[in-house]
Structure formats: C-alpha cells, structure tokens
C-alpha cells in the first residue's frame, strides 16, 4: 500500500467508556482500498464494540472515525451507511419474513430516487427505479449463488446461505468499507471454504476494503493481509499474519499467561 494515499477508513485514538469501564481505548487503524484487514482478540476483547463504533451504533467517547478523510462524529447508523460503511452481524440479522430479493432491495432504499407521489401514481420513474433495483439485486444474488432462492423467505435459507445473503445485503448499500463480524461463526469447514471464495470474489470484483473479525484462525491467517490483535480493549499487536502467529503477547492473550 502506498503510504501517501488517504486511507479509506481511518480511526484516530478511538475509545469508549461504559460507565467506569474502559471498553476500548486508543484504537488506531488505517485501511486502504482493496485491503483486507483482520481484527482478532479473545472473547470480550472489544472487537464488536469497535465495530459498533465504526458503524455509529455506539458513539465513541474519544477519538474519531474518518472515511476518506472525512470525520463521521455524531452521525447516526444510517448516515454511516450512506457515507459508505456497511456491516454484517455476529448473529445473523436478516429480515426473516421478507423474501431473499426483498432483503437486498431494502438496502437499495437509500439510493432510490422516487418519492411518495411517484409510488402512489405508479409513474414511469417508479417503474424504472423498481426494474433497475430488481436487476441489480438479481445480479448481486447471482454472485452469491442465491438467484434460485430469490422469492423464498429469508428465514427459510440454511445458515451458510443466510450469511451470504447478509453479505449481499451489505454490498447492496454501495459501500466503500465492509465490516464482517465473525462471518464463519457456526459454519462447517466446507461452508467456511465457500465463504472464503466469496470474500475473495467480492474483493476482486468490487475492490473494496474489508475489515474482518474472526475466531477461525485458518480463515484469518489465509485471507488477511494484516492483522490487528486487541485484548481488554487495548491493541497488543498489529502486523502480518506470520508475525502475529509468533507474537508472544498474542499467544499469551489467547492461551493465558
């Protein structure tokens, strides 16, 4: 990565307190376009808290999140998404009662231009927008091999495909940074391998930056270019996968001292 480029996502001294508890402190990260970063740490280290700050769910008590150099302080979740940060959830959160394709279409909502009057009168603009949306959604679904399930309720999909749908929905928000929160959790090795393919495909195809939280070490070590390790909210290591694997502080954090 060229160092003179502006990172897509950057945090400066990000930290948050819950009452007296310092959940995360002094979290600094720079992610460049097309880069895949890993974020690991033992249970309760504060990984998901970092994600929640990066998506506006929690407001950090200190520090800033910058997207392409623009600070996002005080914005709400949907404004973070509009700016270009999308995420998936540790425990899958789909719109279970809606069909697979509708799940993706929901994520297009913020970019759809027609208004209430167009919708009420079913104007040409409405039909055009809806048609484009359907085409775009089907295209996204076909990347993930979900096009045959488009009309099924999302909750009827098997676990692995629900994960994929969640990633597809996040991609539909037209983001610059994708945050994946333990995408391989609860998956068997075959599904994990498929997911790995998926992640590589979207990286090559969309050229986006990805930040990945994961417990599955084989996945992290295989796909991530750089890995950041946090424990008790504090960064304890940051480097290439090989360096991380042999770092004594990381081993101590994972295995206990």
């Amino acid at each position, binding site marked *: 990565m060229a160092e003179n480029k502006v990172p897509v996502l950057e945090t400066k001294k990000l930290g948050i307190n819950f009452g007296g508890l310092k959940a995360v402190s002094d979290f600094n990260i720079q992610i460049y376009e097309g880069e895949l970063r890993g974020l690991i740490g033992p249970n309760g280290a504060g990984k998901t808290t970092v994600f929640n700050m990066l998506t506006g769910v929690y407001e950090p008590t200190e520090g800033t999140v910058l997207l392409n150099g623009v600070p996002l302080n005080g914005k709400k979740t*949907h404004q973070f998404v509009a700016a270009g940060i999308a995420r998936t959830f540790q425990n899958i959160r789909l719109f279970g009662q809606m069909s697979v394709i509708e799940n993706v279409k929901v994520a297009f*909502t913020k970019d759809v231009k027609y208004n209430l009057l167009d919708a009420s009168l079913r104007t040409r603009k409405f039909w055009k927008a809806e048609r484009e949306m359907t085409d775009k959604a089907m295209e996204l679904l076909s990347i993930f091999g979900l096009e045959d399930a488009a009309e099924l309720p999302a909750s009827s999909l098997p676990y692995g495909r629900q994960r994929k749908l969640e990633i597809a929905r996040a991609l539909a928000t037209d983001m610059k940074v994708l945050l994946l929160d333990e995408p391989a959790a609860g998956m068997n090795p075959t599904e994990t391998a498929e997911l790995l393919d998926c992640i590589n495909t979207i990286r090559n195809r969309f050229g986006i930056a990805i930040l990945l939280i994961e417990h599955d070490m084989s996945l992290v070590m295989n796909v991530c270019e750089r890995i950041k390790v946090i424990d008790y909210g504090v960064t304890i290591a940051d480097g290439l996968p090989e360096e991380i694997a042999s770092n004594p502080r990381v081993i101590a954090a994972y295995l206990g001292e």
Partner: protein
Amino acid sequence: MKNNKTARSYLVNTLVIAAAFILFQVLTGLFGSEGDFKLVLVPSLWQCCYLILLAASLNLVLGFLGQLSLGHCGFMAIGAYTAALISLACERAGVFTDKAGLVYILIIFGCIIAAGLLAAVTGLLVGIPALRLKGDYLAIITLGFGMIIVNVINNLPFCGQDGLSQGSAAASLYKTGLGFGSKAKVTYLWIALVVTILCLTLMFMFVRSKYGRAIRAIKDDEIAASASGINVSSYKVLTFTYSAFFAGVAGALYACANSSLSTSSFAFTNAGILNSTFVVVMVVLGGMGSLTGSIVAAVIMFFVNYQIANGSWVAALPPFLNGVFKYPMLVYAVVLVIVIIFRPRGIFGTYEFSLTRLPEDVKKARARRAAAKAERKEAVSHG
C-alpha cells in the same frame, strides 16, 4: 413481458372495480327507495367504509411497521370535527344552501381532504416525540395522546361539549353541514365507496414500494434496517403520519354518516364500536400485515357489533347470557382470544388478495392442504 403482466392486472382490477361499482349503482337505483335498503343496508355500508379505512390505516402502523398505537381514534376524531366544522362554516357563509349540486360535492371532497391533512399534521406532531419509544411505552403514550386529542376537542369553545355535540348545533350538522340523513346517505353512497377504494389503493401502493419494504424491514429488525441505510425514525414518523391521514379521512366519512358528533364516541372508554382497542382487534383479527385482512375483519367486526346491538337472537338468549352482550367489549375480547389461539397470525396472516393471482393462490392453498393431510395420515399410520 413482466411489465405487460402488471399493466394487465391493473387493467383487470380497474375494470372489475368499475363494473362492481356500476352494478352497485344500478342496484341502488332499483332499490333506492325501499325501506330496508335505505334504513339498514346503506347506513351499514357507510359504517363499513369508515371502519375499513380505520382498520387498514392502523394496519400500516401496527401490521407493517410493527408499532402498537392505541390512539388511532384520536386522529379519526380530528378528521370528523374538521370535516364537520368546515362544512358548517361553508353553510353559514352561504356557499351552499341545499345538499345538492356540484358545489356541494366539491365541498364534501374538500372537507374529506382537509380532514385527512389536519389529522396527518397532528399525526406528525404526535409521532415525532412518541415514536422515540417502543412497544408498551409507545402504546401507553399513544393511548395518552388519543385521550388528549379528545379532551382538547371537548374543551374547544366552537366544538366539544357546548358545540357540535349538544343542542341545536347537533341538529344543525344534520340540517345544514355534512351530516347526511338516510335519504342523502343513499344519494351520496358513491362518495363513501369512491373515497374508500381510492384510499385503499393509495395504501396498497405505499406498501408495495420502497416505503413498504423499508417499514417491513424495520418491523423485522430495526438494527439491521438502520445498518442497511434506512433512516428508521423518519420512516416511522412518515408511516405514522400517512396512517393518521387515512384515519382522518375515515373520520370525515363518519361525520357524513352521522347527524351529530360527540367526542365521547371517540373516547377510549367508549364501549361502542369506535374506540382504539376495537380498531386494534380488527387489525389483529384480519392479520397484521394484510390490508385484505383488515377489510374483511372490519366487515366481520361491524357485523358482530351490529348483531350484538340489533340482533333479535340476543334478546332471545337466557338472561345470564344476554347480560354478557350488554358489554360488547367483553365479546371483542373473547373474539380476540379465540383468534389468537386458533390463528395466531390473524385470518389472512400477511396474504393479500389479488384477482389476477387468484387461480394460482387457490392451487397453492389446495396443494398445501393436501400435503398437510398426507402428513397427518402418515403420522397416524406411524403412530
């Protein structure tokens, strides 16, 4: 090709509605002067129209958006009083003298739209603070707002207790303002039908657009919805406002169908048909998330209510049973409990009736039933 199909289904629907409407008008012309038609059927239809609108509009908030609002009749009250006051003012200003002619019809429609708009504005003002809350808290605060609205109307000098609801003013609504008598109700029945069909169409269009998708997403998972870029609070307020608009229109139809207005008929403590819990019962009965369900449930509940009030079989019941029907709320509660036990998702669930899709749906339902039957048989043979 798909576009052609949509266009065709629109055409079919429009034609069928138009045909049904013309048929109805012809029948009205034939039987218009007959007693039962004039005194029972037409007033019932008027009542059904505003109940349907009321249930369908609440369904937007309760069924599609998934927020429990218990103050829906407050918006209806605003609509009713707005329509009544504007029509009275027009009459007193001499805009119309008799209840006929183009000017009068224009005034009726003007009143209906104004009623909807004022209710929508109130809905916006109530919704912005109230929708910050969720679940039970939202229910309580909307219940409170519903009561506040009714009390405010009650204490306004030009309406409320000394205004439209008592004495000469009550009669004047019938003699002068909107308030149709039984004959005018027959003449202007088409207005109620047209307004109801139009409003239902608008609601369907709302549900089947990005707005409907967004609010159903909010119902399923608010956090995921905002993580998908949906501005949850603004969509909530928008839906609440939109819903209040149609409640206001329903109120205007109510004002047309009655010779007098009284705030007590919109109050939460009202044991009659027009209180906010009754509307909730209708929505739950029909299916939260199905406008078709709301329409059917409104008619069913109207019928139940009508039977309780007027059915001769009620009087023939033994006294201890007869007493139960003195408390209609009790009956609604029982109906609701029965529905929850046997069809927890309401009569229709989230199914929407469609003329062009009907054969397909029937086939699917048959297949499903056959499959269920086969499964049961298998279970029996195994057991």
